[in-house]
């Protein structure tokens, strides 16, 4: 990619909801817990000491149960919520210190947002909804319309330009939401549980649409979900949030293989590990002089795909190779099976 997008750097971010957040920030920094803050002072601790880098041009997923502070966090990135303390740096600027006017310009040019309940304008057609961000920037219609039509086309809604949102299904409405966000040509795409309200099949469709678009656009996507499968499918980087604090940050594989604590372990217990773990992770270093199998698969391939190809091709063992085709290790079906079995479930069976 020619244009490298900057990272979003979140530093020591705190958010306290209530009548006088400033009065309690020091106590919270000194370790006052969320429950105590609520019980003793009637304030809600939304976020505590968040330090997170969201890499430019990648999809970062923020995950957590309902009420863990996901929406609060993502709304700090475009300044919809102001922090009690901390900073959010983007391209040399602190979003938290921007004036109203600067913030408006930042939102118009650099961020776009997709919402859980779509948040389309019911009195505007699909085309007019897609044009919304450009209208706000006062781009002349003659210039804006072709852009909007192109994005409507890209999200698969060609022919629906003059429909109103109420005439569309949920999945189609969210496609409009996506087109509206993309038409802005912003670096940052904020998606707050954007697919959570959709039926499972349509949800998978939308995930594919997003991945395809991202393949080409390389935006800095911040995606929120409470669904681990979705997080693993989309996220280059995953951050797990609980009660307003970060529990673990890492790639999907890191989180599944090494959950930082019981909370994260509980999250990953039911996940389909074969879709997360890469062949390279399971491969063992061959003994010196060992005769290597003929077949080979890329190290980045997930176990599910490796297993499918090996059974299809009738191999019991194979080499795992890196990008240059150099052998990294060997893998066989029993090693794959062992890695796919969840250690937690395995333990409970032997016990």
């Amino acid at each position, binding site marked *: 990619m020619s244009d490298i997008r900057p990272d979003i750097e979140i530093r020591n971010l705190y958010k306290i909801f209530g009548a006088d957040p400033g009065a309690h920030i020091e106590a919270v920094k000194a370790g006052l817990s969320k429950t105590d803050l609520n019980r003793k002072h009637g304030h809600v601790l939304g976020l505590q000491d968040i330090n997170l880098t969201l890499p430019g041009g990648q999809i970062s997923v923020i995950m957590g149960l309902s009420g863990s502070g996901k929406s609060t966090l993502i709304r700090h990135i475009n300044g919809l919520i102001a922090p009690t303390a901390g900073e959010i740096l983007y391209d040399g600027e602190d979003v938290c210190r921007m004036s109203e006017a600067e913030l*408006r310009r930042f939102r118009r040019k650099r961020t776009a947002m997709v919402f859980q309940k779509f*948040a389309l304008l019911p009195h505007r057609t699909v085309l007019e909804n897609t044009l919304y961000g450009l209208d706000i920037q006062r781009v002349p219609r003659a210039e804006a319309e072709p852009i909007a039509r192109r994005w409507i086309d890209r999200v698969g809604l060609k022919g629906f330009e003059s429909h109103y949102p109420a005439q569309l299904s949920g999945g189609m409405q969210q496609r409009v939401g996506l087109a509206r966000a993309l038409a802005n040509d912003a670096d940052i795409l904020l998606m707050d549980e954007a697919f959570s309200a959709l039926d499972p099949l349509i949800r998978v469709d939308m995930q594919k649409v997003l991945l395809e678009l991202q393949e080409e656009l390389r935006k800095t996507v911040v995606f929120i979900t409470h669904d681990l499968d979705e997080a693993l499918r989309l996220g280059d980087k995953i951050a797990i949030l609980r009660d307003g604090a970060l529990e673990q940050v890492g790639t999907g594989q890191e989180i599944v293989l090494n959950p930082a604590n019981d909370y994260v372990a509980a999250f990953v217990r039911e996940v389909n590990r074969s879709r997360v773990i890469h062949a390279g992770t399971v491969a063992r270093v061959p003994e010196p002089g060992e005769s290597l199998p003929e077949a080979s698969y890329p190290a980045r391939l997930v176990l599910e795909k490796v297993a499918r190809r090996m059974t299809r091709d009738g191999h019991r063992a194979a080499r795992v190779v890196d990008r240059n085709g150099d052998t990294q290790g060997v893998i066989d079906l029993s090693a794959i099976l062992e890695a796919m079995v969840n250690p937690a479930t395995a333990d409970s069976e032997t016990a």
Partner: protein
Amino acid sequence: MASSCWGLPELICRFPEVDATAMRHARRAIDTGFRDLVREFSDVIDAATAPLQVFLNMLENTFVNTPWIIVFAVLLGVVWAGARSVRVVAGAALALLVIGWVGLWEDTMITLAMVTVSTLLAVALGLPVGIFTARSDRVQAVVNPTLDVMQTLPSFVYLIPVVVIFGIGKVPGLIAVVIYAIPPMIRLTNLGIRLVDREVIEAADAFGSSDRQKLWGVQLPLALPTIMAGVNQTIMMALAMVVIASMVGVGGLGKNVLQAINNQFFTVGFLNGFALVAIAIIFDRTSQAFGKRLQKHREAGHE
């Protein structure tokens, strides 16, 4: 005197009233003070109400002096533009023809002019106040109780300060009607804006809308059905109040009703009353159908 006090002390038995002389003095002080104040500013008041007088007279003259067939056609045109319904237009035509036939055309025109001007004024004033109220909870905490008082105050009571300040005539009547009819406009504008989906407002913010872009592009359009319900109610209240405002010199159907009450003219009273009802129904159907048409796009369903 205190014949049956059941042996209770005087203070508990009989209500301790303020001294009658003190009351009289206080009343006189307030009344004359108020009157002097009005006299002092009479020039200002006259200057302020002059444009209203001109506008009202102009509209009234147009309605009354234009040949009836033209007014008739224009009215039906307006009804059609609003309601887009043959039934409503036919009903309006029939009602207007009957009104004219029983000799109430001119009075109806006077009332129509009055209701039109007062509705326009109530909307022009009520809309900004409603928007302002929706923007701040503190303003709402002042406005809402005020509207409560305005709506529970008997309509006759409005006439007293209006007459003291503005005297007798069409314009004082107009002002009384506007004050009486404005609360639903303010209330429903406020409510409509406050009921706009929070997430949609958030979306507008997230795309960098300014306050003005948000107001005109999102809040008002989405609140429009509720605001239209406010306009509808304002019209209805204005129609009710023109009858009472005839006590301070407003002409038209209301004046006839008032005379009919004074002279026990049963038939005249009812004819005029029905004419008012007919106008009310025409206004109501037209504005409601218009409001419904505005939110047609909200109807669900694939083509």
